[in-house]
């Protein structure tokens, strides 16, 4: 019990004292996670919409891979990205390994299938008569997708939040491809793992509070957007 109380006190102290390293780690975490979720959303929603609305040969296979990707263990993703970015690997010349860019790539890889899978499921669930009605109303293809996105807003925002949850919680791949370098690629989750391994539970608890607060604030904003009354 003492450990928890000490941890809470330490967290308050670290935040109030304006610990530069904590702010740097928090900033890097925010930067990496928001970039990753932004890229995943940008790619995942159009791809999910395409998968949900169209029939083509091999669609089932694509869906199987997307669904497998939804459960892809981050360390597996980390392993393959490390091999790709390794100095002698196919993309080694880019020099991305042990940079925040590598962490973003890993996080996109683990969150993208979630956003694609859930978006595609939401669109596949749309009533075919509604699709017909939208066409009958004189919508262009883009207008049709826009209307459907509005109608599936709850599910789409849930997909983004699920992806964000995955990104914020991700540690294995970030550790592997980022290297947890102090002042550079260290993020909240990798930092927590390191502090626990060194027995600094108070610092780890402090970091967990910051991570939870970030997750709460971002999810609160997304939930507010999700639940906002919509007007065409």
């Amino acid at each position, binding site marked *: 019990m003492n450990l928890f109380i000490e941890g809470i006190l330490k967290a308050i102290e670290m935040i109030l004292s304006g610990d530069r390293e904590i702010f740097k780690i928090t900033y890097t975490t925010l930067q990496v996670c928001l970039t990753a979720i932004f890229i995943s959303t940008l790619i995942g929603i159009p791809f999910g919409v395409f998968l949900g609305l169209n029939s083509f040969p091999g669609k089932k296979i694509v869906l199987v891979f997307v669904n497998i990707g939804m459960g892809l263990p981050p360390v597996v993703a980390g392993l393959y990205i490390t091999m790709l970015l390794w100095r002698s690997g196919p993309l080694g010349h880019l020099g991305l390994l042990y940079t925040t860019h590598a962490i973003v790539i890993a996080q996109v890889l683990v969150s993208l299938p979630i956003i694609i899978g859930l978006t595609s499921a939401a669109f596949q669930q749309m009533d075919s*008569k*509604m699709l*017909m009605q939208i066409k009958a*109303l004189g919508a262009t293809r883009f207008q049709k997708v826009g209307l459907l996105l509005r*109608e599936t807003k709850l599910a789409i925002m849930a997909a983004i939040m699920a992806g964000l949850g995955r990104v914020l919680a991700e540690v294995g791949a970030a550790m592997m491809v980022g290297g947890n370098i102090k002042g550079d690629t260290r993020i909240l989750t990798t930092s927590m793992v390191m502090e626990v391994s060194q027995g600094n539970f108070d610092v780890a608890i402090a970091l967990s509070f910051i991570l939870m607060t970030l997750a709460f604030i971002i999810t609160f904003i997304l939930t507010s957007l999700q639940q906002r009354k*919509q007007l065409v």
Partner: protein
Amino acid sequence: MKKILQLQEVKVIAKKQTLLDVPEFTLQQGDLLGVIGPNGAGKSTLLKVLSFLQAPNEGRVVYKGEEKHANTLSLDIRRRFAVAMQQPLLFDTNVQQNVVLGLKLRKENKKIINEKVDYWLNKFQIDHLAKKNALSLSGGEAQRVNLARALILEPEVLFLDEPFSALDFPTKAQLIQDLKEILNDTSTTTFFVSHDLLEIKHLTKSLAVIMNGNVEQIGYTKEVIDQPNQAVAPFLNKWKELYTL
């Protein structure tokens, strides 16, 4: 009367089954045509083909004397029509936004939209519901919104696919009466699919009976009901027996 839509040698085939086989069919401008037939006869398929929502597997769809295809290029023609289906299929926003949706998709001028929406909300007696979420309406109210959403477009042809079938009798009777007055006022060419001869008799000028994908008889509503041919007589006579109860 001018021919607004024609089908020539049209066939719709799905899973090796012929759903629609219409050698010749014409919708005249200004007509109020009812289409009746048993379930699965091809009524809704005929509606979809005529309204350019579905392309036939064979044959031609002719709009004002010109052959057209139901692909993305037909958007211009589809925007001259309006369709109200059996389910109101309203969007999760207020009544007013639902009614103006088609105009907004056509990027209509805001001032014109505001003028038209007031007129049509009033015409269908739903102005008091303007700010209410469309998904919280009763069946009758939702269907009024659906019809207002279609008629606000001032379509060249109004397609109605069993819009009253899910309504209770008093609601249905009132709505049919109101719609009849509106259609008479606007002289909108209407293609009205129904499985209810009472609705057809009350609302339409002419009637087509469709059985097993074929248009078996077409003519003035009264004539078709009073003098059905051999192919449609068993179906229509069942209705007549029901009315005499």
